């Protein structure tokens, strides 16, 4: 099923040139290049454009653009969008891809990926494409884009499948180039007992994506075919089981691609895995946890890991762990209690952390030299915030 495309000037005028002109810019250098930035500390006074997804019982789903400066946020645009569960930005284009965690599209059981163009000047959000996933790939919960921007990998939690979508030169996703239906007996604590791919991340250099299947309780290493010469080369190259009934649910990948951290929610724990040069995964440690972890992320430039867990409906905890990358050993260094509901996503934003939490967008100050979290405040009242990504730093 092909993407529905949305045009500003009518489809007959749609060209790469008109598309770029439609962005209001001649180039894309203003975009944050996620893997080209190097290990450089950012200055907190920059103006930043964020995208935040949210949904609540009252709101079927909204994508927000938020301008952030000096820790203060201003919501500048919003777009209704059902159940936005995961966001990722294109490495070069001002486009955000959204996993819309729906069961149905056009009355058929399939999820959807939305491509949203973000105007860097105004922050306005415009849908440029809506790409249905394969039949039965319902409830996409996570998506990742390859460093070259040519492939999106989508983890369809409900349907137990991965979809690999090609992305064209201007950032429009196409119909799945590969559909990888998963099987696997899930945890006794989960119903139904079957595969539920929950999170996926792209390796920074290799044509691999690492994914966690919380239903089948395993890590999957996906080899992702690039280019147009073949549409069937993508496959699950290897799998490694997680401890039974541990409920792996989230992933973080160190910026050099050598260390993977998974969080487990049924038997709360943090497990670390080294990724070999050919993609082999080997377990390093498993650290039991006293609370259910809800989100995890590496600092993009420091060897630091942040881990969020829920203490109560109104209180969460953010921990900072120092990472010895060569060995995979983690050591807890600091923690911060935050008055907010469950934290679903963590993103480093110019020497701060932004947290997508049930009660809103939370900004966390970091000590410049150590990246230790020192304080927090609600930066934007976005109820049911569940995912975020940084669009622009200028």
């Amino acid at each position, binding site marked *: 099923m092909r993407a529905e495309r949305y045009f500003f000037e009518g489809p007959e005028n749609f060209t790469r040139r008109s598309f770029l002109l439609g962005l209001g810019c001649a180039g894309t250098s203003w975009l944050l290049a996620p893997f080209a930035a190097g290990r450089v500390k950012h200055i907190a006074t920059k103006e930043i454009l964020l995208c935040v997804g949210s949904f609540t019982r009252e709101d079927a789903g909204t994508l927000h653009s938020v301008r952030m400066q000096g820790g203060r946020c201003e919501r500048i645009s919003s777009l209704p969008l059902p159940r936005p569960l995961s966001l990722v930005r294109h490495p070069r284009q001002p486009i955000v891809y959204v996993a819309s965690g729906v069961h*149905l599209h056009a*009355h*058929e059981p399939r999820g959807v990926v939305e491509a949203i163009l973000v105007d860097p000047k105004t922050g306005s959000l415009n849908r440029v494409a809506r790409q249905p996933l394969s*039949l039965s790939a319902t409830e996409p919960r996570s998506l990742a884009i390859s460093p070259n921007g040519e492939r999106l990998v989508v983890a369809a939690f409900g349907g137990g499948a991965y979809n690999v979508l090609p992305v064209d030169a201007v950032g429009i996703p196409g119909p799945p180039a590969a559909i990888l239906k998963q*099987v696997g007996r*899930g945890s006794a604590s989960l119903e139904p007992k079957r595969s539920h791919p929950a999170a996926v991340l792209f390796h920074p250099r290799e044509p691999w994506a690492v994914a966690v299947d919380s239903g089948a309780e395993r890590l999957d290493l996906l080899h992702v075919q690039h280019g147009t010469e073949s549409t069937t080369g993508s496959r699950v190259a290897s799998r490694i089981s997680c401890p039974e009934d541990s409920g792996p649910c989230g992933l973080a990948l160190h910026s050099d691609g050598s260390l993977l951290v998974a969080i487990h929610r049924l038997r709360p724990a943090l497990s670390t895995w080294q990724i070999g040069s050919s993609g082999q995964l080997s377990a390093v440690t498993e650290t039991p946890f006293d609370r259910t972890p809800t989100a995890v992320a590496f600092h993009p430039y420091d060897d630091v890991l942040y881990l969020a867990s829920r203490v109560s409906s109104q209180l969460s905890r953010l921990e900072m762990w120092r990472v010895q990358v060569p060995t995979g050993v983690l050591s807890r260094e600091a923690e911060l209690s935050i008055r907010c509901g469950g934290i679903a996503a963590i993103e480093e934003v110019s020497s701060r952390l932004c947290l997508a939490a049930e009660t809103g967008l939370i900004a966390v100050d970091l000590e410049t030299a150590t990246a230790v979290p020192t304080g927090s405040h609600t930066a934007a009242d976005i109820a049911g915030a569940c995912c975020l990504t940084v669009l622009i730093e200028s």
Partner: protein
Amino acid sequence: MGITITRTDSRFETLKMGHNLRFPASDEDAADQIILCSSAEDTADALRKVIAAGIRPTVRSGGHCYEGFVSSNPHGAIIDLSLHNTVERDEKSGAYCIAPGAVLGDVYLSLYKRYNLTLPAGSCFRVGAGGHISGGGYGVLSRLYGLTSDWLTAVDILTVDADGTVVPRRVDAGHDPDLFRACRGAGGGNFGIITRFHFEQLPAAPREVATITLFFPWENLTEERFSSLLMTFGDYWEGRGRDPDTWGMFSLLEVAPQSSEHLTLYTQFCQHDGTASDLGVLNEFLDRFAPFQPMLMPPRSAPVAAQRSATDTRHASSHKNFAPGARLTPWLEAAVGGGGSGGSARAKYKSAYMKRTFTRAETDVFYRFFTSNDRSAQGSVVSIDSYGGAVNRPDLVPATAVAQRSSVMKLQWQCYWSEAADDARHLRAMDTFYTSLYTGSHVDPDHQGTPWGDRYEGCYMNYADIDMLRYSYWPGLFYGREGLYPFLQKVKRRYDPNNIFHSSMSVRESYD
């Protein structure tokens, strides 16, 4: 070992398609491979391979799926069972066994010649047993003998468990009875791959049948007379057609556009003893149509003298209550002599079960459509089949997966065309035509546009129609309102926990 046909094989372009040429809609939508299986073992091997590769399997027996549930399978594999086509008797159990790839015409021939038995199944001889029986199956003998799946006593089926292991099962009333019930009419492509149908008993093949085809020239049909004709047909099945002595009669009224010049009424009759020695019931039925001046030949080829009249004694005159114009035919010739199921074309189909005769409002909708100049109308026909009789056994509702046991007619909308560029126009026209029939005060406000309510009994799963998906209650249309669909959802969760077998209309985990 099955035969794998990939895109580089010269057979691929032919085998990637089914009977409805709308599917696959594009090269991208086609499966990447077709695996031709000749046995249950081949089928299990093929299924294991596609599961291990993370590929979606779709399953084909005869290739007559009305929607793209099989042929539209991007990057997937079609497991084609057409070479697994035996019809035989199991020496141990004594059951008659039909493999899914057998086409109905061959089933009739084999059962008749080997055992003097038959199966109350469809009249399209190239239709594969696999899909037909899975969805219930009915045909010319169903008023006499019931649905095809009513006779099923066991099924060999391959399911896929949570680990992805292919599990061969023989299911019957005592073994996995829930899955067995689901296999009796819920439709193909839901729970696994059926590799053999078992029937402990089958009905005797009739010795002979009386057949007659009447033609009603459009030029004689005013709107009033058209309406009266349809109501005459419907009145019979709602009333007299419920009596057991009529169950051996099947009739099909084919409503075609004015440009085709006539409507056609095909009728077949035999008594419960498999003979046509007394045609009183047939004659009584046919007499109801005398006021419409039916003809025995299509209008262009028929002189006026060919009108059915009481003086015509050319056929069946030696039988009691002979029916003028009727032919006595050996049953086998009537069953398989007519040919196949037409050539392949681009097509759209829809269906409805009717519990009552037609209303004037309904016949007016038909009249307007078929007398219009609409291009879609020119390629369309609605087949109105008699129904009921032995099908309408309420005791079979909890034992099978066919909920519709109260109807007296079953309607099948068909529209055919050749050019892909015309797809949207014809699909829209059929949808509008169908929806308009069920829009109005005769349908409650929450179910407008659908055959729902006291007069109707929903739709037939073997005439799959994805237009109905836009109604949140679509499972109720196909599976009734009495709990069959929730039951099937439980079966789905138990036997296909990974939802390996799926289409846009397959049983879903939750009631979306």
